[in-house]
């Protein structure tokens, strides 16, 4: 059994082992909770979820080792100046538990811009695998197809049926238009990039961040010498926010 040195600290504050053990277990439990209610997909891509689960189990194990030591040995409490640095883990715990879990939305868009990228990973492979039926395409598929095509006008008139959230503040929008947007995430929320298309619809645009399903056809016009793609919508219906809000290249 591990034997401690007799501590000479004053009997205020909390034992370090207790603090560390509790925080480690709390972090492990919080990560498991995020995986269980699927909020984890707001933060990292699905392929990495197993690493988080493994880490959560590991953290609980580490925390138990600390709590075991505290329970068995009952070391004297360390003073507050020593304990305070150990509490940094409260920050992510608070962020994860006290604030409502939310994916990247129009607020993040305003920081990053819309369609602010030059290429997307594995674009060629994805383009080759695209189905012929464009009504199955996601916003990511449409963005790739429009960018990679030498002549986007070839997609004129193709059926559109996709989902995304509403964004109304893009400066390239004309009257009667709103943007339908989704975030493309490669690794974690930090690298999320927004892709979107303008939608022309007779009815007023839904409030920003509303998730909608847009059905219609693609129009390609020329604006200042550049092709401009717009979805001429026949139907815009609000839908429930999807469990997996991001698209992955």
């Amino acid at each position, binding site marked *: 059994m591990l034997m*401690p040195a007799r501590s000479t600290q004053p009997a205020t504050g909390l034992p370090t082992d207790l603090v560390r053990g509790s925080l480690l277990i709390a972090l492990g439990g919080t990560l498991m909770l995020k995986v269980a209610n699927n909020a984890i997909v707001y933060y990292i891509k699905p392929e990495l979820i197993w690493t988080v689960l493994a880490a959560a189990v590991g953290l609980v194990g580490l925390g138990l080792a600390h709590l075991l030591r505290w329970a068995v040995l009952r070391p004297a409490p360390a003073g507050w100046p020593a304990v305070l640095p150990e509490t*940094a*883990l409260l*920050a992510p715990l608070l962020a994860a538990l006290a604030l409502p879990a939310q994916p990247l939305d129009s607020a993040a868009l305003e920081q990053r811009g819309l369609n602010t990228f030059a290429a997307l990973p594995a674009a060629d492979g994805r383009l080759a695998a695209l189905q012929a039926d464009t009504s199955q395409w996601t916003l990511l598929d449409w963005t790739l197809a429009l960018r990679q095509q030498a002549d986007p006008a070839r997609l004129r008139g193709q059926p559109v049926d996709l989902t995304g959230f509403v964004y109304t503040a893009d400066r390239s929008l004309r009257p009667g238009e709103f943007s339908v947007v989704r975030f493309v995430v490669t690794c974690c929320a930090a690298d999320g990039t927004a892709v979107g298309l303008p939608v022309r619809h007779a009815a007023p645009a839904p409030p920003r961040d509303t998730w909608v399903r847009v059905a219609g056809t693609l129009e390609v016009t020329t604006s200042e010498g550049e092709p401009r793609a717009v979805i001429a919508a026949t139907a815009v219906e609000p839908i429930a926010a999807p469990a997996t809000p991001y698209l992955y290249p």
Partner: protein
Amino acid sequence: MRETQPAPRISRSGRHAWIAWLLGAGLLASGGCAPLAVTEPSRALGVLSTVFLGIFIEAVPFVLLGVVVSSALHLFVSEELVARLAPRQPVLAGLAGGLLGLVFPVCECGVVPVCRRLMQKGAPLSLGVALLLAAPVVNPIVIASTWVAFGGDWRIVAWRLGLTIVIAVAIGGIVALHPSPRQLLADQVAASHAHGHDPTGGPGERLRALLWHSGAEFVEMSRYLILGALLAAMLQTVVPRPALLALGDWPVAAILAMIALGVVLSICSTVDAFIALTFAGSFNTGALLAFLVFGPMIDIKSTLMFLTIFRRRLVAIIVLLAFQMVLLATLLITYYVS
């Protein structure tokens, strides 16, 4: 030797803790002065929290792996073994450190506890610095992901590896010129003690010791990860990405922009090749390499974690040297190779 609870650090760490908490609270309150944060603070806070948790949660498994490896080294590998295996000549030691990542495939977060443990065991400074800078790139996972991201283009992979190793070994060699390298280590590392050999007892006690040490080290490392992730998330609200991308036309500005982006985004090196690819159209090869080489070496969260190993002055020197070398190398590549 009896396991002793490490003496609680007093005023210096306590001060740092207060500063960190105040800084974090201040940053959150100000929201980075971004217009959105001023007009709609709750929305900005939501984005900040999501990005912060994204960086943090993604890094946690790798930090955990790193501290477990580090604690295993601490408990089961003696200083004599390290002294026997590590080359004494600085350049060779640097090369050994640079290539060690092939054996310890950890993210840039995971390599910090491993490096710190090796320094505590008396490994040469050049080995530690080269390991720290090179291991995030010179490992099988990153090599593979770079190759996949760039569609099998071996030249990018080769440039990335080559530049990283050369720069890491060079910086390791330069800092090793210091007359007494042990002075450059942080207090807690330099004052290492000899209790790190095999705890007596069966596998049960060894496992408990390993778990306890890993937990203690994880809590310590996580402080820097948390502050780094918070700062990176803050910077993302302040630095407008479109402005950075608009600099793509001028070579020097492009390189600087990609270096800045690498620092701001603070993404794990295992997947940053895919991020680099999103800029492949607007930026030249030199700028992309600057992102791929500098980013894994130096970003906000990793630089903060370096402070657990080295003194501030050495960390600053490492950052400056890395910046200069990457800038010079990628400029040369831009003008003479592409």
